[in-house]
């Protein structure tokens, strides 16, 4: 091995590391990522350390000394974590049922529609539907469940509903792909060994699904944490749904303090990163290999 490596040409050495002519094809993509992602991020980071007044940390000091600003972190987590958890918990049993269906494609098509509509259209729709004179309240009144319309708009629940509706299809489809990826023979084997449905879920499916569900959690959490349109349209943007993206928007476009806006955006990213890292670290405690029962 050593002797053959010694007389290899540089080209062979590069090829052994997976670098050859084809590698050049990744250049345009690498360039694009540099221009559209790395540069703006680096520039934003730089901007956040160049405040209008004060030392290089002035923006961060300002953020963490003003409850009106730092409370937005808690407000955002307060919405995004429950929404993410609820959509995962809803998606799991539905995925378990749907994996047995023959006409999955129809269902998937129906579910993809809310994704394509976009958050703003869904928010506008909910504005009517959940309003005091909307169908939701009218149905509940007609059924006699409530005696006067309940308030579902311009508060926490409006944002919650909107995020759940727009985010659920994504969470569900991802969950479905993880659930269908598990070899059905494993469930049969567990059944013949005496495990009932509950124990098959607890002992076989759940441990195999945890890594996928963790990734799923991270992806939908990041989406939910950056909530903006529905927090403004359906929530109370000055009150309980004053999320962190609103604070960043106000700093940048109402106070024209781009530096402060950048600092808030960086803090937002740091919080997302912290949650994602925590979840992925917890995932390490579980089995993460192949989920098939067949030989490798």
């Amino acid at each position, binding site marked *: 091995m050593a002797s053959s490596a010694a007389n290899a040409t540089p080209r062979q050495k590069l090829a052994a590391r997976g670098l050859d002519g084809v590698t050049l094809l990744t250049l345009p993509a690498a360039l694009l990522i540099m221009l559209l992602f790395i540069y703006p991020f680096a520039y934003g980071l730089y901007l956040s350390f160049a405040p209008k007044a004060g030392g290089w940390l002035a923006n961060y000091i300002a953020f963490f000394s003003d409850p009106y600003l730092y409370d937005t972190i808690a407000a955002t987590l307060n919405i995004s974590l429950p929404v993410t958890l609820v959509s995962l918990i809803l998606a799991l049993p539905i995925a378990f049922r749907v994996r047995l269906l023959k006409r999955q494609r129809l269902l998937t098509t129906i579910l993809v529609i809310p994704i394509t509509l976009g958050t703003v259209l869904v928010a506008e729709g909910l504005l009517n539907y959940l309003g005091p004179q909307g169908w939701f309240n009218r149905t509940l009144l007609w059924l006699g469940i409530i005696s006067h319309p309940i308030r579902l708009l311009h508060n926490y629940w409006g944002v919650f509903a909107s995020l759940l509706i727009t985010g659920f299809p994504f969470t569900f489809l991802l969950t479905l792909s993880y659930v269908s990826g598990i070899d059905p023979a494993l469930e049969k084997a567990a059944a*013949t060994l005496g495990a009932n449905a509950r124990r098959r879920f607890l002992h076989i499916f759940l441990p195999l699904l945890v890594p996928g569900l963790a990734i799923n959690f991270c992806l939908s959490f990041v989406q939910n944490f950056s909530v903006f349109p529905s927090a403004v349209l359906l929530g109370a943007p000055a009150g309980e749904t004053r999320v962190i993206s609103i604070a960043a928007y106000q700093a940048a476009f109402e106070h024209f303090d781009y530096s402060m806006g950048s600092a808030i955006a960086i803090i937002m990213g740091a919080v997302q990163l912290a949650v994602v890292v925590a979840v992925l670290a917890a995932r390490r405690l579980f089995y993460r290999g192949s989920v098939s029962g067949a030989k490798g």
Partner: protein
Amino acid sequence: MTIASSRFDTLSLDGVSRNFGTVIALDSIDLTIRRGEFVALLGPSGCGKSTTLNCIAGLLAITAGQILLDGKRIDMLRPEDRGFGMVFQNYALFPHLTVRQNIGFGLKMRGVPKAETSRRIDEAVRLVRLQGQEAKLPGQLSGGQQQRVAIARAVVIEPPLVLMDEPLSNLDAKLRLEMRAEIRRIHNELDATTIYVTHDQDEALSLADRIVVLKDGVIRQVGTPHELYQTPADRDVAEFMGYRNQMPGVCSACANGRASILTGDRVMSGIARGDLSVGDAAVAIFRPDDLAVSTRQEGGIAATVEAIEYRGREYVGTARTPDGLPLLFRADKPVDAGNSVCLAADPAQVLIFPASGGR
């Protein structure tokens, strides 16, 4: 030996049917299996053999009939309540559990006490000769070792019945022979009752006490390996048992269990099978092994050699008669392709079936 199979006397399938939509996968199967038997369900793919096994295991509901264990109906029970051990074609080992946890899974589900669980796992590990591999995950094992884990996991719960669904089909040829012997050894050692699904006649012949041949969801024949090999009930079973040469013609004589058939301009004699009378369309079938090459030009079937294959100790050739029938034959010496040969079939080994029926 402390792992033993639970006691029962008979498992009966009584008119068991299974439809998939309009497709009839199993058509009123009747079969009785006695304790201690090794029964092979043999047939081509799609014949219903795996369906039968899944119905017995409870993984598929039956659409008619009943399954009885010592006279008690079990076809309404869920798989987890039947307690049969099953070995799957792809092993279906739990990838996140170690070998030890995999084998112990059934005991854990049954709430067997810790000390006994541990003792029985040790026993099962010794039985399948996997000592030292207990802490590994299935992904770290070879195919043969995974198969052993699957067997240990199925027998450690001491099931009345062990069900095996083509357990050797994912292994290479050498390992398949080795595991075949292992499976029979384990069956004998545990005094188990085993139902074994396979499409491989060699496997069925060498393993089973009794073979059930299925085709198109119907049982064609049940018998010992010897019975099936020597006296197949119909043409399909015969074909499946290695009678690969077929010569159609007209029955020209039939008496005392013997028959003659006029095929082309030749007359062949053999054992009469089925409902055969003179003048009926018939077919003579025989094994390549029972077709000898001779250099004499009379008293046999004239044919031209098309191809010859070396098989180590012998040669297997393909020849074609002047009227275009393909024949497989065996030879001790190579015969060049293109040569004319004379093939003689052993009249004691030729079976003559009616051309219609049996299918």
